[in-house]
């Protein structure tokens, strides 16, 4: 499973792409694979404040349900309506069409690079 080099990662298996002060957030292919077919995604409301490491949504597969964590402190600026309508894009294209939400970053904790995240997924 390839792990894009240009992204940052959390131990909750989310990826973050930073453009200026806005971060785009999704879950990794590793997480999507572990969940199985995603059938429902619930995302935070645009305008809401989220805190790093705290739950802000849900992602549900036929088998299980997981929380979505905010990877940074900030304000939600946009959510991916397409992923709400077609949750399977989380499985088919987790790093592009399957993005979940954008957040204006107020405070950024330390995040993993691709090598560190790759090591995390190898730990089993």
């Amino acid at each position, binding site marked *: 499973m390839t792990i894009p080099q240009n992204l940052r990662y959390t131990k909750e298996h989310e990826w973050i792409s930073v453009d200026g002060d806005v971060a785009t957030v999704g879950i990794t292919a590793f997480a999507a694979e572990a969940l199985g*077919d995603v059938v429902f995604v619930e995302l935070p409301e645009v305008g809401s404040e989220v805190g790093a490491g705290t739950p802000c949504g849900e992602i549900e597969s*036929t088998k299980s349900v997981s929380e979505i964590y905010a990877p940074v402190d900030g304000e939600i600026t946009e959510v991916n309506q397409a992923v709400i309508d077609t949750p399977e894009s989380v499985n088919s294209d987790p790093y592009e069409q399957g993005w979940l939400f954008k957040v204006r970053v107020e405070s950024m904790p330390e995040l993993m690079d691709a090598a560190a995240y790759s090591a995390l997924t190898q730990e089993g």
Partner: protein
Amino acid sequence: MKTPLHDVHSGLGASFTDFAGWDMPVRYSSDLAEHRAVREASGLFDLSHMGEIELTGPQAAEALDHALSGKLSAVAVGRARYTMMCNEQGGVVDDLVVYRLAEEHYLVVANAGNAAEVSAELVRRAGGFDTVVSDRSAETALIAVQGPTSAAIVGAVSDADLSALKYFASVPATVGGREVLLARTGYTGEDGFELFVADADATAVWQVLTEAGAGHGLVPCGLACRDTLRLEAGMPLYGHELSADGSPFAANLGRVVRFDKEGDFVGRTVLEKQPEPEVVLVGLAGSGRRAPRHGYRVLQGDEEVGEITSGALSPTLGHPIAMAYVPVRCSEPGTGLSADIRGRLEPVEVVALPFYQRR
């Protein structure tokens, strides 16, 4: 533990999960695609983790009548019966399928998580009878072909006359030249077959079925879709709908407790005196896409009335479905209840089981 097909699954790119100590395929590609394949074409399952225990001898039938809730002595040779093993308190040790292979020869199929206990209990309970109990689990593999095209697939590679093989019947046969016990049983709500084979023949039989299934939409299927398939079919799963302190009557399984058979059987005294159950297993249907899951609370208004035993977004129906134990007064189809889905109450309605029935 690994089944004899473990390498085959790895080669197919399966994801694995632990199930009762077994490293089992949970999915090969997509749970939903595998689920759909079983409803519309066919799926191929490795169920070798399940337990197979044989009883042979002049009193095998009497021993099973004593050990289990059903009247196994009344099962005709070649037929099978869904039944249960109960404990002295009337709780369910396991739910079982028992095949009568010959006048003095039965095969008991137990859930993986209960196989060791069922085997030990059968030895103990058969103690006073002229029968030999042999646990064949370690040398027996079980492969299932389930779905509307399963008869075409199995028919192409076996010497059995499938038109004469009824549902819940079995026949010794060969598949690709290997000896199998071919049973028309399953846990998916579809027509289907289960093939008991020697461990050493499992890979060959799997390959023969895979090749025969190529033109019939057969795909390998993992345990994830097995669970959603059985849930849609309203079939109980041990540890969810059934347990050692749960009553068979509450689980709507009174029909498999046979008080009309002669003699004592384990649990009889308690089960006969058991009052009408206060709670019963019901089906629940929701709207939207958030599914109630095992352990979630069920409410009527503000009052907590029960607990979800299994639930999922039904791949076939497209809405959430669940089973739950609720008081009899809340069990009428059409009753409006709610499920506490991680802190938010979602409306659900009691519906008749099964949720899905093949045409």
